């Protein structure tokens, strides 16, 4: 999902930066509030960041014969809500842009929007919906992480299509074209991310499958 350095036209680069910036500011405010109100959540907040740090470094082979990577933003989005992930995701993307020449500074706004904003919000929405519909914690977390991952890659496809519409079929054609590269590759990897997120969530909470698992993680309940 990393759009490479210099590969978005300058207007798009600035536009995505402008769209992402308020989300990141809101994320900083939210993270500060969480740490102030429940200092015991600090560790878990850092673990949520570490989880995306770890997963987004793992490029995995997929059934399409190409490689891609999970994003790991679903876990933090489920535990803390989507806002804080915009900050944690941006830190990961900055690290990769500066030290790995992966992604870039000019494309940071667009990449933050797909990985650190859309993904977490979709994860959080799916988590809320699935829980309300009576899914177990494990199923809801799995769906949240899997669909969050897929939505990140779909967002990237749309971003690239907006910048590079197909000559004959326009933006919709380009969405299908770029989506073809990302989406199929991503499906098995999204499932892997879903499975791993359930495992790590259980391990972190130490109270697998209990109703208060998530509350305990985000520090709302004193343990």
């Amino acid at each position, binding site marked *: *999902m*990393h*759009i*490479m*350095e*210099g*590969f978005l036209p300058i207007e798009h680069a600035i536009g995505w930066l402008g769209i992402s910036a308020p989300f990141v500011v809101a994320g900083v405010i939210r993270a500060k509030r969480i740490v102030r109100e429940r200092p015991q959540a600090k*560790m*878990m907040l*850092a*673990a949520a960041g*570490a*989880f995306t*740090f*770890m*997963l*987004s470094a793992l*490029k*995995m*082979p*997929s*059934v*399409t*014969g*190409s*490689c*891609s990577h999970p994003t790991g933003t679903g876990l933090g989005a489920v535990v803390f809500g989507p806002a804080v992930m915009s900050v944690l995701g941006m830190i990961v993307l900055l*690290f990769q*842009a*500066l*030290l*790995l*020449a*992966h992604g*870039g*500074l000019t494309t940071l706004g667009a990449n933050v929007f797909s990985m650190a904003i859309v993904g977490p919000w979709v994860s959080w929405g799916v988590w809320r919906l699935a829980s309300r519909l009576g899914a177990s914690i*494990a199923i809801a977390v799995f769906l949240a992480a899997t669909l969050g991952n897929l939505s990140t890659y779909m967002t*990237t496809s749309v971003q690239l299509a907006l910048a*590079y519409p*197909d*000559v004959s079929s326009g933006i919709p054609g380009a969405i299908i*074209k*770029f989506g073809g*590269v*990302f989406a199929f590759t991503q499906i*098995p990897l999204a*499932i*892997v991310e879903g*499975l*791993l997120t*359930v*495992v*790590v969530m*259980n*391990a*972190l909470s*130490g109270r*697998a*499958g209990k109703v208060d698992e998530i509350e305990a993680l985000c520090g709302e309940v004193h*343990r």
Partner: protein
Amino acid sequence: MNRHRSLWLMVAAAILMFLPLAIPVFQGDFEGTDGQAVEMIIQARPGYQPWFQPLWTPPSGEVESMLFAIQAALGAGFVGYVIGRRHGSSLKRNDHDGD
């Protein structure tokens, strides 16, 4: 069942990850999709030159893979540390409960 659930989920994840490499049907050169997108842009807009270059690029594939490994290791290490801490504190609490 919950005791072993994590194990089975990890086995399933590992199978999904390695299946494409083990089964010859899924052929390909396993390039990164990010790079493929770049190729598609260049195909659609021949002669496109990125207007900004990364400030620093790892000098070789080896250095790059080391940096990726460090990224994964730091992340995994810290997640493991927090899991261990939580496990330890819940063991302690159980001990006190037994007093």
